[in-house]
């Protein structure tokens, strides 16, 4: 490995680490954000319902649980 290749590999490693860190930060932040409701507030048919933390969804899920228990 000559000097040019050595500098290049250090640069490559740094950029890869930076990209990995950037992706990690963005995915971590995304996991912390409550997703906005994107299905016209129709909880019944919404595929995001299971993980949705919107107040409407929580009320809907509670109601559903009650109905199921009865």
């Amino acid at each position, binding site marked *: 490995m000559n000097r040019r290749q050595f500098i*290049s590999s250090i640069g490559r490693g740094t*950029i890869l680490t930076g*990209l990995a860190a*950037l992706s990690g930060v963005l*995915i971590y932040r995304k996991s912390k954000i409550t997703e*906005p409701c994107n299905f016209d507030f129709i909880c019944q048919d919404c595929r995001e319902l299971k993980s949705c933390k919107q107040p409407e969804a929580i009320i809907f899920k509670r109601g559903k649980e009650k109905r199921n228990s009865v």
Partner: protein
Amino acid sequence: MKRKLAIIFLLVIISLQIFNSFAIQRFPKPEFESGHTQPPTITPDPRAHALAILDVFVLVAALSVVSWLVIKKRSRKGVFWMSVFAVLYFGFFREGCVCSVGSLQNITLALFNPEYSIPITVIAFFILPLVYTLFFGRTFCAGVCPLGALQDIFALHPMPIKSWLEKVLGIIPFIYLGLAILYAATSTDFVICRYDPFIGFFRLDASFMMFMIGAMLLLIGVFIARPYCRFLCPYGALLNLVSRFSKKHITITPTECIQCRLCEDSCPFGAIEKPVLLKDKEARPIAVRRFLILGIIIPVLVIVGGFVGSQFHENLAIVNPKVRLANELLNNTNYGETEKEAFEITAFNSAGQSKEELFKEAGSIIKQFYYGGWILGGFIGLVFGLTLVSLSVFKYREDYTPNKGTCLSCVRCVDYCPVLPISNDY
């Protein structure tokens, strides 16, 4: 012949897009008693979750295939047909959204605005081409980016341009990159998407001005290959930087260069670097003195650039809709309309926010632009300084080699090389 076939094929696909106008909305739009009409949307509808995942898989597959075609197969024909595929799939089918070029704004917005929930697809579209570039050079530009691919198809009679002009114009993408980041970071606008010259072609809804700019770029692109990629693309500026560290990059000759000079003028992008002999190296004291001068000039350029940028912060901030609204209200200019109240002002008056609150908010945004102006100006100063350094550095080269930063890995030069690869068949 194949190029003409590809252009005819593209025109047929464009004409098929007319059937989109017969599409029916899934849900009817609400009707307003006030007579308000819904404005047309400027972005395509969000894609279904499964299709968004499919897009990422197609991106990975396309990047892998193009990288293999460039590095292993060294096939210009293969790269060309991948370009056609990119135009059709990432361009017309996906309506060019989300693209890697625009994704850098989403990334910036997500970094500066923690409330913004960025889709994983967008992260993938930003990161994956950079990772592939880090290993194989700008193979994304070669045959995956629909904007580049469209221009590449139209590069019928490319002519070389002066290297000094190439260098000077090559600074523009970095300035554009800085501006795009500033506007995205301040949640002002996605300028790359708004002024994308080719997206209107893919969606068939270009405004007259953008259609003309796009058509002009394609027309210029017939003679000056891929003008948007070389002299405007902000994502290309990032790829340019990353590609310099690429592990494997296309080489003109498969084995040893015989200095036949056949490839010398083969690159339509002026990305082939000629051999530099040791005897051309200047005396050490002169080089040392030049570096000392540059060592002083670069910080000066950064500070002067930052100061100039900060002085323009109000001009830069006026693009922000809130700052503009505050400005219009403060000066009573009503967005230049004389007959009736501007929609923006009507909307503000009915929203219930006080003028004081708006002015306070606008003031805060202007302050962000002040600091952003310093950083943007400093960055532009740094780019100028580093360009000066790159012109001054002596790089010893024995062979004709592609410039890792500016080479778009299109594989055109390979066809000019008479050296055959070493075969294991014998």
